[in-house]
């Protein structure tokens, strides 16, 4: 699908409608990518309206990528693409503290999260999709967590497991070395509370993550 849109020149529609967009004062000719100039105020407005992650996609209306996104975000195509992502999530088993014992119990045969497409990643972290931070993250470990997160390919999600990973837990406020919630380091999708959370709670977190993946925009 990507290849067909990127060919570009074979696209035979006249330049009307979607392809001629006026941004602010400058009329943007949307024939080539280099001619797109967006004023600063427009950027700020876009960030304010759509958030930093979506703003790039929104403001560059003339690019091929925008058209690709626009088409991919039609509900049926989006549903199919998201459905394809849904059932093969490989979590990184990142043991930072005692919550990993509950995780080990969760991925065992008794609870069997493979029903929901969660299969423990064996092999390289660079092939996994989900970063499961299990427990207390110290200042030294925070760097390692960030390095692991940066090495994972897109799309990727993060689950913060346990009270310590969410807010510092036992070590909140008066600890010199514990990160007060890992959302200071990596963006978190699902918070699973508990000290430690039971396997049922963690599986509920997995189900919530599936719901989020199925409904997210591309």
């Amino acid at each position, binding site marked *: 699908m990507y290849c067909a849109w990127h060919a570009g020149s074979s696209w035979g529609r006249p330049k009307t409608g979607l392809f001629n967009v006026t941004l602010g004062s400058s009329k943007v000719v949307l024939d080539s990518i280099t001619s797109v100039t967006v004023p600063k105020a427009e950027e700020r407005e876009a960030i304010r309206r759509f958030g930093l992650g979506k703003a790039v996609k929104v403001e560059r209306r003339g690019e091929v990528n925008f058209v690709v996104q626009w088409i991919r975000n039609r509900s049926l195509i989006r549903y199919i693409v998201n459905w394809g992502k849904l059932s093969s999530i490989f979590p990184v088993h990142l043991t930072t503290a005692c919550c990993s014992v509950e995780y080990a119990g969760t991925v065992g045969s008794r609870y069997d999260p493979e029903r929901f497409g969660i299969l423990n990643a064996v092999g390289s972290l660079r092939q996994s999709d989900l970063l499961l931070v299990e427990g207390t993250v110290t200042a030294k470990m925070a760097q390692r967590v960030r390095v692991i997160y940066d090495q994972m390919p897109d799309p990727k999600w993060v689950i913060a497991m346990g009270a310590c990973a969410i807010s510092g837990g036992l070590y909140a406020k008066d600890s010199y*070395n514990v990160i*007060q919630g890992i959302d200071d380091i990596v963006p978190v999708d699902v918070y699973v509370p508990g000290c430690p959370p039971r396997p049922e709670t963690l599986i509920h977190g997995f189900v919530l993550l599936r719901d989020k993946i199925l409904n997210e925009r591309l």
Partner: protein
Amino acid sequence: MSKVQSIIDEMRKLFGDRVKSVIVDRKILKVEVDRSIVVEAARFLKEKGFDHVKGVTGVDLIALTKPENAIEVIYHAGSYADEELKGTVLSLSVKLPRDEPEMPSLTQVWRSAEYHERETFEMLGVRFAGHPDLRRLLLPEWYSDIPPLRKDFKPAGRV
């Protein structure tokens, strides 16, 4: 307990009033000595059978109900070889002034105190003169605040 009692009596006789206080209880066995004689006291205890250190503890005494401007360093010594002293843990404690917490290292007497002294150094800022390798042990490399287990340390918390 009788052998320990005799050892402590002998210590008192030997060092006089530089043994500051002695606590002999069913669970606590603590001898507080002056900073100037701590190496001699440790040598003496090692001759009498306390052949290793189980742990070195540092306590900041500034936040007590009766605060003292001091840091207390406690060596917990035990014995492997002596039959009578097997279950005994004797605490040898030194009080150091908080402004200048410096004391001679006891690694020359008890080799097993080395890593414990390194930890006390990084957590409370006590400098051990004559320590073979006085570096940080557990804290991050970029740490630049005052030692974190001192009671006037303010943790950053969540911004």
